[in-house]
């Protein structure tokens, strides 16, 4: 029965071109090295706003929460992260591109990336950003080893350089490989944050909660022992 359902759906899925989960397995994921701290996330937010936010919303994250979460001031958020047209400080980070236009330009609307890291994993996002290559057969001129026939062009090509399918450099990168790795890791860290902003609060609260419960457990144990002293073994 499950098989039938999956066959039916696989058929539908194949007819919709850009679903590529099955093809992912061929590429080994690179590990994204980043520190999950306010400085990294602030850099990531800025990079995301510069290179990604024009098309990809992170609509569950409101600009205003960057102030308490990342320790940025309201004016820094407004100047470095907020998109100039139509963005509202108290609202979610919505791309300015209309879905109708997106569909006309790219064939598909760019997905919201709020939960992307939790859905696909940080290493997937990091590797994806490193996997673009020049492919003249694609309408955009771009293809991706991790996500074959993806609609998205390599928006970081002017920084990370351009490679062909075999990995030969066609255009040298403007950044050193280490700089480009750090930049993409910062973007990945930012998307890790957007996928679950509670992580900052959880990490801050953790030691207190655990400390309290350890203390409670010790006291409860001592109380238990005191009560049980008169139970004959």
């Amino acid at each position: 029965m499950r098989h039938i359902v999956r066959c039916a759906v696989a058929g539908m899925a194949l007819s919709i071109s850009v679903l590529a989960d099955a093809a992912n397995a061929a590429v080994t994921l690179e590990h994204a090295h980043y520190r999950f701290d306010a400085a990294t996330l602030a850099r990531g937010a800025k990079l995301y706003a510069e290179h990604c936010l024009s098309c990809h919303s992170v609509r569950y994250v409101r600009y205003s929460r960057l102030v308490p979460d990342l320790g940025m001031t309201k004016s820094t958020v407004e100047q470095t992260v907020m998109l100039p047209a139509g963005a509202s400080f108290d609202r979610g980070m919505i791309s300015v591109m209309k879905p109708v236009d997106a569909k006309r330009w790219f064939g598909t609307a760019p997905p919201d990336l709020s939960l992307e890291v939790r859905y696909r994993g940080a290493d997937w996002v990091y590797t994806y950003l490193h996997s673009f290559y020049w492919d003249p057969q694609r309408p955009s001129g771009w293809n991706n080893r991790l996500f074959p026939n993806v609609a998205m062009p390599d928006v970081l090509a002017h920084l990370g350089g351009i490679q062909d399918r075999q990995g030969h450099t066609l255009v040298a990168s403007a950044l050193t490989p280490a700089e480009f790795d750090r930049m993409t890791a910062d973007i990945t860290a930012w998307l890790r944050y957007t996928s679950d902003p509670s992580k900052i609060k959880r990490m801050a609260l953790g030691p207190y909660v655990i400390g309290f419960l350890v203390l409670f457990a010790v006291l409860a144990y001592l109380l238990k022992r005191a009560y049980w002293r008169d139970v004959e073994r």
Partner: protein
Amino acid sequence: MHNFYNWVDRRFPFKEIVHEHLTGYYAPKNFNFLYYFGSMALLVLLIQILSGIFLLSHYHASATQAFDSIQSIMYDVKWGWLIRYLHTTGVSFFFIAIYLHMLRGYLYGSFRSPRELLWIVGYTIYLALMAEAYFGYVLPYGNMSYWGAEVITSIIGAIPYVGHWLSALARGGLGIGDATLNRFMAFHVVLVPLILIGLVVLHVLALHRVGSNNPDGIEINDYRRSDGRPWDGIPFHPYYTVKDTFGAAVFLLLFALVVIYAPTMHGLFIDTANFTPANPLHTPADVTPAWYLSPYYAMLRAIPNKAAGIGMLALAIAIPYAVPWLDRNPVRSSRYRPVYLGMVIILAGSFLGLGWIGMQPAAPALLPPARILLGLYLAFFALLPVVSHFEPTRAVPQRVTA
């Protein structure tokens, strides 16, 4: 204060209830580690009800808003993430507690006469809990929720003659949508919790009628002092309330470690595929159930024929009801039955193995091991009436041992 107490006492049997179920209820003094999990399950039930009330006040059961309302709980509602993680972690901890509680029952023969009803009610609680977990799993309306709903409701469709009608009834239409979410919410929030709470009350009442079993599997009431109190029994309150408080502290410590440091437990407690909204056009790479239901899913997949697979699944789920009558040995506890102990270990091991297989992508290579494990699981129940007749037993002590 004293006057108030008397005023209540003339109108409500508070004193009697406390005496009957706490201070005057004698439990064996030799409970071990495995005896924590009954009260731990009760604790998680409380956590689930309380966190559920808060979640319900922000959740919208609608196909277009359910996923977003869950995200608004996670992102915008003050402490919403904590409440939701408590609820999602609570499910897994509930099943951990229940599985250990059931293992305890198997190990020490806690289902044996006169505790058959206690076992039957308890096992029904477990089945109700599976239904509760399943309905709750669909509500966030992520993609795994959607496909979980799709797959399970189509299993109902395999029932001969009335299947299609029942499946449409479960879905509230031909497909999964608004109507499905609304009826699943009614089940998850009203119907099943009421059944669960009712069964828990019955379970405790039945327990207090027959008394607790213990790791030695002998009756403490056979040896009483001159005043009628059992020699090897101690009042539940204060001895076990204070011991369970310590148990609860450790349990909550582990609970908090998960909620704070690994709320998704790497996809085990919250499925990765549920971080994308329901999409009828895109099946997740592998539609597999949550870990606590995966043994049954492995059983279902082990048999290629749909009707036979579902029949086998029904048998595997129903057969533990019969276990009080399948075991014929006069000795209860596996402490004094080495063969039976081995059988319980194989039963638990095959269940765990099936659980692992049920979480893997469907692969032909996993078919033979799944069938062997299913065979071992069923063999426990098939062989028990015979083995329990002939198995060697050790000398059972008359009084409980430490």
